[in-house]
């Protein structure tokens, strides 16, 4: 085990699919929607990432804790700019990150 593995928060290693609305029978090989959270947004969600199995497309905000910051955040859905009301479906890659500076 290298230093990085040793120091990595345990919850990252234990990440499990977390579904808001499970499909009863997920087609084999169907990819889940993947959500990644950066900066303090990961604190709000309690995780740096999760995979979600969706019955049907649902607005992003329904998959997030409420309240969730509405401004000064970046939402990318499949590499394109999205919003909290964008519909998310299986196989989508969603990235939520704060506006920050880096110095």
């Amino acid at each position, binding site marked *: 085990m290298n230093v990085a593995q040793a120091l*990595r928060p345990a919850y990252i290693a234990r990440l499990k699919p977390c579904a808001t609305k499970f499909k009863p029978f997920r087609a084999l090989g169907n990819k889940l929607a993947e959500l990644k959270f950066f*900066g303090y947004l990961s604190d709000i969600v309690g995780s740096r990432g999760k995979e979600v199995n969706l019955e049907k497309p649902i607005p992003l905000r329904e998959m997030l804790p409420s309240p969730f910051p509405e401004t000064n955040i970046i939402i990318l859905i499949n590499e394109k700019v999205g919003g909290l009301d964008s519909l998310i479906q299986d196989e989508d890659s969603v990235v939520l990150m704060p506006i*920050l500076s*880096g110095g």
Partner: protein
Amino acid sequence: MKGYAGKLLRVNLSDRKISKEEISESLKKDFLGGRGFAIKLLWDEVKHVDPLSEKNKIIFSTGPLSGQLLPSAEKMVIASKSPLTGGYGDGNIGTMASVHLRKAGYDAVVVEGKSEKPCTLLIEDENVKMVESPELWGKDTFEAQDLLEKKYGKNSGILLIGPGGENLIPISTVMSQRGRAGGRPGMGAVMGSKHLKAIVIKGTGNISNFDDPKLRELGKKGYEEIKTKESLDFWMRQGTMQAFDWCNENGCLPTYNFKEGVFEFSKEMDGYILEKLHVDRKGCPMCSMQCGHVIKDSENQRAELDYENVGMLGPNIGLKSLPQVALLNRMADEWGMDTISLGSGIGFLMEASERGLIKEKIGWGDFETARKLVQEIGKGEGTGALVSKGVKAASEAIGKGSHRWAMHVKGLEISAYNCHGCPGMALSFGTSPIGAAHKDAWIIAWEISTDRFSYSKEKVQKLIEFQRIRGGFFESATVCRLPWVEVSFGLHWYPEYLEAITGNRMTWEDLYQIGDRIYNLIRAYWKREIPQFGRAWDRPPDRWFEEPHSQGKMKGVKIDREKYEEMLSYYYELRGWDENGIPLRETLDAFGLKGVAKEMMGS
């Protein structure tokens, strides 16, 4: 106008003449302070001189917010004609010296001439003197800080240089408090050229403000607002290092001399690793959200890290161990050299070695050689000597197309954001008034949050708005921008603070005007000092236009040169500059800069 000490301290190290001058009301009104004061003084007094000659001057300049009991109001600007770029150079630094200077009764210090022997400038309120200090010469900035604190008191405001500045290395900075640094474009070398090792300031007075009770109330409310911010807790844990995995995710982490935007070992050195290794926090006075994270380096010594130095001394040179990066960073601080330029220089050498352009074998991530190079660069010796004057000079020395991947603009090394996929940020680096610094317009987050790959007019407009706020207001007020940028501290506070301090009600529009005046005068300074200066100085290196990334989500991405030029032309149009980027006479006149156009053109 209230809120200013109203005095400028002028020290000539050649004839030891010390004088105190009134700061005019028009200077305060038109240029605010900090960078504004600095460029006006340099424009008036430093013309066509060798930056490392005794004819150059170095300015330490505060603004009306400096030293006030307000969130992160601890900055000062250090400015001079740059030995690295040949144009206007400055940097801000958060330090007790800023607080003490104001308490001592001065808004700015101008140091000119050259001392025969190494000296320290001692400012104790009204009493100012030069003290010979040969015992400090050759000492690193940590050791010299210890000796100065022992002699003058732990709470003194101290600015000093390390061996890098003494050796006139153009990437050397001014340091304070064992890790605070400022003046990337070689301000340390200018101090060194004057044999000025340190400035020690002890002020015991008070700043006289227009409405002190109101200011105290506003300051308290400001600190309280910061405490309520949802993002504060995470900021306190990771500071600027939260940008590390953010940049990697967005494909803009400087990797292998800016060849790539993602680093395969990023998870081994990101902000979460920093959290685990964190042993202490450091920062500036007045700050309630200090950004310096101390870890134990690979020699078990304490070293302070932030995103810029990790980005440039980590992935940019292929180094994946945070403790090893911390050691290189500590060495840079001890030697008093800029970590961004240092990382860029070492990355340049590694690439030159890979391409067989230098005989030494320096592999990516070769920590021991990098460590040796830091010393060589600080001495201007050995292989390191090649990049000790910056990567622009290095590429000119070795030729063979190396200018295409010498990562600088205007001679100043690019800070830690790779812009193959961020044309707006590339323009931000391109048009920064000191060279490729991020402090003036960090548009990259806004850019990614909107229409990342566009070359829109809206993006150029936004860039200028950021330059006005960051490079204009924050650099001149002088106050740290991080509460605004990192935890969304309200910009509306600043005009309120200024009103309580000075008694003048100013809107952001008024402050934009001041910022634009400053930008125009800086631009004119470049043109006056470098007659051939023009559009070519605003172009980032060819790598971003010609060599797309080969890895990650940004694979295949590069900037479109023609569209970049279109954005640049629109930028000039908005600024009131000609197609070569030179301010038009009517633009300069409109900002009250009478006579500047004529002098700028050398007529």
